[in-house]
């Protein structure tokens, strides 16, 4: 799992774009030999800015592979925020990003 983030501030509003590289397996798909592919999907994605959670998403199997998320919030250029993601297998990823 790898998170890519771009964040740009304009008129006091930060536009953050997130791309999380994740297979988002539902657990209902079968491989070539007919065996079920175990489920592996994101459960939570959060964005914390100055100690406050400004975005909190709970995801399930309905979200596509490599989800792309776009978020806007009030913020200041040059400051940082943190993105956290976790999936149902316990894997987590974290990224700290500076607002441009």
């Amino acid at each position: 799992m790898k998170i890519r983030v771009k964040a740009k501030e304009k008129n006091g509003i930060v536009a953050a774009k997130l791309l999380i590289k994740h297979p988002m397996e539902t657990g209902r798909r079968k491989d070539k030999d007919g065996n079920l592919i175990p489920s592996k999907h994101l459960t939570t994605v959060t964005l914390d800015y100055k100690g406050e959670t400004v975005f909190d998403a709970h995801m399930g199997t309905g979200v596509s592979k490599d989800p792309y998320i776009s978020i806007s919030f009030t913020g200041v250029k040059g400051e940082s925020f943190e993105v956290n993601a976790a999936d149902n297998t316990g894997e987590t990823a974290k990224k700290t990003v500076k607002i441009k």
Partner: protein
Amino acid sequence: MNKNKYLAIIISSLLFACQPYEKAEKDSESSAESVPTGTLIQKDMPKSFQMGDHAAQEVIAGWDIDIRPDGMGLPPGSGSVEDGEEMYEEKCASCHGSFGEGEGSWPKLAGGEGTLTDARPTKSVGSYWPYASTLWDYIHRAMPFPAPQSLEDDEVYAITAYVLYLNEIVEDDFVLTKENFATIKMPNQDSFYVDDRPDTSNTRCMENCRDATTITEVLGPEYTVHILEAEAEAKLKALSSNEVKIDETMLANYNGACKVCHSVGIAGAPKYGVSEDWTSRLAQSKDTIYNNALSGLNGMPAKGGRSDLSDDAVKAVVDYMLNSVNAK
């Protein structure tokens, strides 16, 4: 086979182009046609065709913009991932997506690693391309889509660096320069190899070769072979067995009407030379097999779609195919 045809066309156009020159410069009676083709193309090319102008170095430089895998052709310059991000957002992201994921059905630039063997592979810079030089060349030559060749060399370096970063080939503090270009190794580079299959079943002849005018084509079940006319009959005889007579017409019929399905098994067709495919068919009487071929069955059209063939011609081909699995 096709290659030879093209070569013939090229040689004949060379002949045509050289004719006035031969006459004017040498004042010779012999026309270009009488010169054996093999020797003509080995001669030095004339200095001038007495038309057009010599291309100046500057003119050639304007066209010579290709970049080779080792970095040959790159202009001096550099660009960082950081600068590239800004330019990418401005000029590229509207189509290729902020992370190279591709907006709509515009090309994806990143992702798709490990999908090349899937039914629907994603061929991106990172998952497929063998050399980074193609990226530089392509961006420089054809991008951005509405304004190709509008980018400065340093901008191309920066955007190239950023696309490599999107594919996790370089880190975010990377600066791409002419000097370090060749050090970039693309993930899929080693999956490309030179196709070692031969063009034809014939061995290449480099010296003491046969006279081209006595060589003929013989259609075979797998390849078309080129052999001496004198040997053609013997070759066909060798292909034949006691039960099945193989001749040019029959092979042409097989190649033209039957091979398309029966060589690879399209629409459930039993394959030429594959015994298992024929087992259930051979349980039937030979007349049934003939009739199925003549009037069609399931995916098989009557006479293989060639209603112009005589019944006997179709039967001959059936015999030929049955013979391939040693059935009579």
